[in-house]
């Protein structure tokens, strides 16, 4: 409850600060650390998968364990790595880009993070409690319903809890962007990253409820004897597929749109040019989101929906290529005539174009319903979505992190190491996945524990594994880079890249209240406007006054913890009996109790007084 804490604090104090923080910049760091951890975990799982597939008929890893590995690899990477890492960037950057002091719901923001973390931890507890989920990240029923043990229960409940968190995060971002923009920051002046955050959040809002329902139905089937997906009792397993993909397809855009946003910023900054065709970029983003809702069934072409449905969804899917193409050309034309600086962040952006174009191309090929009868569920699909998700989202995250690292941590990542990471990762990535297109066409279905000898699949798989190792090395260099920067790095200048958007107008380190005075935005790329038409500093839109700040709270942590405990109770209700009911009772009591405290205890926040702000200004 105080203003900036100066000087060294004890370790415990720091931990407590992070456990209770509602500051979007600190929550961003929490998302980054947790997401990074899960990224490494998912990467480890991927390495084991590739090791198993290095040689034909390999006995290195057992079938069951292998299924758990790829299920958890997919689930972890999508829900626990890619999304949180993007949320880290959104949290860290978006409020600064629109000139806000905070997000609309700081408490909900923290709650969203803790729900995600406890959901993710719950999911990963399965490794130690009898086996991880083993029905694929898509968990198709009835395989997921009859899967023995508690693996799939961990999947259903873990994703449910972290899904609540994501939904809250999404609503928070939407409202923040609507109500908290600085004076002059009109919608059509918002940086593309903010726009894509906005649109992705709207997608979250409408996509996640379908997953919520799907997971509830799966949980009911598994734990409470319901019959949604049990054919003998009148259930219908296709419902799961629809619900999952009604969520699952927009999810892809939830991941890729923010990455598009990152690249738009990076291209513009390092080409020293404003984004080419800004309004068509915004339009394309919205159009992709809109179309993204009407194409989910292209994941289900071989389910047997009939030629009419297949054709409709095929054409709708192809239509998405148009706005995506618009974006690609706009990025190219942004660089055209610019003054391109090949920093590490820019390398990711530049290499993204051919990579993602390939992914988009195979996307259109997959959209062609009849042809998809061959591609579907083969390694061709595996190659395609890794081109999109690694080539788009992971490159976006890595590029974005390199770009905004000085803003988040006040230090610059080592460029030389960064370039090593990039080249190894880039080469490894293409080695791993390009060949997989052909493996798929040569008849290798996905999720294969073993491929047999004499089918011509040996060389391709070996190359793929070698590539995976390069990516692993790249990741280690990245880790080393982060550590060495944190320990030895020097404080970076406030605006190291000659930035164009509002976030670079802030001093380093960013004050916890962000903007002492809200800035007046006079155009697109507000800082650039001031650099070329003003004195390079933002003009304040208000006189210096008290700043209202939210209070820290431990309740987000306890609310999530309660659900985490209760989830165990629900899972072990049948086998453990009484203790499980105790867990349910205690868990729900903690959660509901915390919610009750939240609603009866007034949380009015506090003010930083004008005088203190003036003093700080003098101390700078």
């Amino acid at each position, binding site marked *: 409850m105080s203003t900036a804490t100066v000087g060294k604090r004890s370790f415990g104090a720091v931990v407590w600060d992070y456990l209770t923080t509602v500051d979007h910049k600190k929550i961003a760091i929490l998302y980054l650390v947790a997401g990074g951890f899960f990224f490494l975990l998912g990467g480890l799982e991927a390495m084991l998968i590739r090791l198993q597939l290095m040689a034909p008929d390999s006995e290195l890893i057992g079938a069951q364990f292998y299924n758990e590995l790829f299920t958890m690899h997919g689930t972890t990477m999508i829900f626990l790595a890619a999304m949180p890492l993007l949320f880290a960037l959104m949290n860290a950057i978006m409020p600064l880009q629109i000139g806000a002091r905070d997000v609309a719901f700081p408490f909900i923001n923290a709650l969203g993070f803790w729900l995600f973390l406890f959901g993710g931890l719950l999911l990963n507890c399965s490794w130690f409690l009898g086996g991880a989920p083993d029905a694929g990240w898509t968990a198709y029923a009835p395989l997921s319903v009859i899967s023995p043990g508690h693996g799939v229960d961990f999947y259903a409940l873990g994703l449910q809890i972290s899904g609540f968190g994501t939904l809250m995060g999404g609503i928070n971002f939407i409202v923040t962007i*609507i109500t908290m923009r600085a004076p002059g920051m009109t919608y059509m002046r918002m940086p593309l990253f903010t726009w894509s955050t906005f649109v992705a959040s*709207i997608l979250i809002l409408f996509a996640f409820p*379908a997953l919520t329902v799907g997971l509830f139905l799966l949980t009911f089937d598994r734990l409470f004897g319901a019959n949604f997906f049990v054919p003998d009792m009148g259930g*219908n397993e*296709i*419902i799961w597929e*629809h619900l999952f993909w*009604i969520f699952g397809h927009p999810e892809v855009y939830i991941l890729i749109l923010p990455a598009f946003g990152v690249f738009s910023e990076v291209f513009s900054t390092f080409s020293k040019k404003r984004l080419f065709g800004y309004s068509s970029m915004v339009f394309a983003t919205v159009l992709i989101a809109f179309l993204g*809702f009407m194409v989910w069934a292209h994941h289900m072409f071989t389910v047997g*929906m009939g030629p009419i449905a297949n054709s409709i969804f095929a054409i709708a899917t192809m239509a998405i290529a148009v706005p995506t193409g618009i974006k690609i050309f706009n990025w190219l034309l942004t660089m055209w005539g610019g003054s391109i600086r090949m920093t590490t962040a820019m390398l990711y952006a530049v290499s993204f174009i051919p990579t993602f174009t390939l992914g988009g191309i195979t996307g259109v090929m997959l959209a062609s319903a009849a042809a998809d009868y061959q591609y579907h569920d083969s390694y061709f699909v595996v190659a395609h979505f890794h081109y999109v998700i690694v080539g788009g989202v992971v490159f976006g995250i890595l590029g974005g992190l390199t770009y905004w690292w000085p803003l988040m941590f006040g230090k610059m990542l080592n460029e030389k190491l960064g370039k090593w990471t990039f080249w190894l990762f880039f080469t490894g990535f293409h080695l791993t996945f390009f060949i997989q297109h052909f493996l798929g066409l040569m008849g290798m279905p996905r999720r294969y524990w073993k491929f047999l000898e004499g089918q011509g699949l040996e060389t391709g798989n070996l190359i793929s594994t070698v590539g995976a190792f390069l990516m692993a090395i790249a990741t280690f260099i990245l880790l080393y880079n982060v550590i060495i920067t944190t320990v030895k790095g020097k404080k970076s200048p406030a605006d190291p890249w000659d930035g164009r958007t509002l976030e670079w107008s802030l001093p380093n380190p960013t004050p916890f209240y962000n903007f002492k005075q809200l800035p007046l935005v006079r155009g697109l790329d507000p800082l650039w406007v001031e650099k070329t038409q003003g004195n390079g500093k933002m003009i304040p839109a208000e006189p210096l006054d008290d700043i209202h700040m939210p209070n820290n709270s431990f309740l987000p942590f306890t609310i999530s913890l309660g659900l985490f405990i209760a989830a165990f109770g629900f899972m072990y209700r049948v086998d453990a009996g009484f203790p499980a009911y105790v867990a349910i009772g205690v868990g729900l009591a903690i959660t509901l109790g915390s919610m009750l405290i939240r609603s009866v205890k007034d949380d009015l926040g506090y003010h930083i007084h004008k005088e203190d702000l003036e003093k700080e200004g003098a101390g700078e």
Partner: protein
Amino acid sequence: MAKDTNSNHADQYYKAKKKEEMKHQVITFALMIVFTIIAFGLVIGEFDKLFVFPVLLVLAAVQVGFQFYYFMHMSHKGHEFPALMIYSGIFAAILTILALTTITWV
């Protein structure tokens, strides 16, 4: 954010407007009750399915419109985004229901 219009005159005007609005809401409520009775009546009267189903759905849609626009004030100023999101939600909802009732072999 809120403009302070504390003058008495404005207050009077504002009060009158709210009264007016309240009247609309009561009328809406009466209509909803009537619609509900019609809906139940149609079913009890055992009319033809092909006739009853569309009418029931239209009655329900109108009732929901009443709820949103009169009870929840969606027509008022400052509800542009709520309206946009509700309609987007309805759009996604219709797609979902259409899919689950047509291409799942029911």
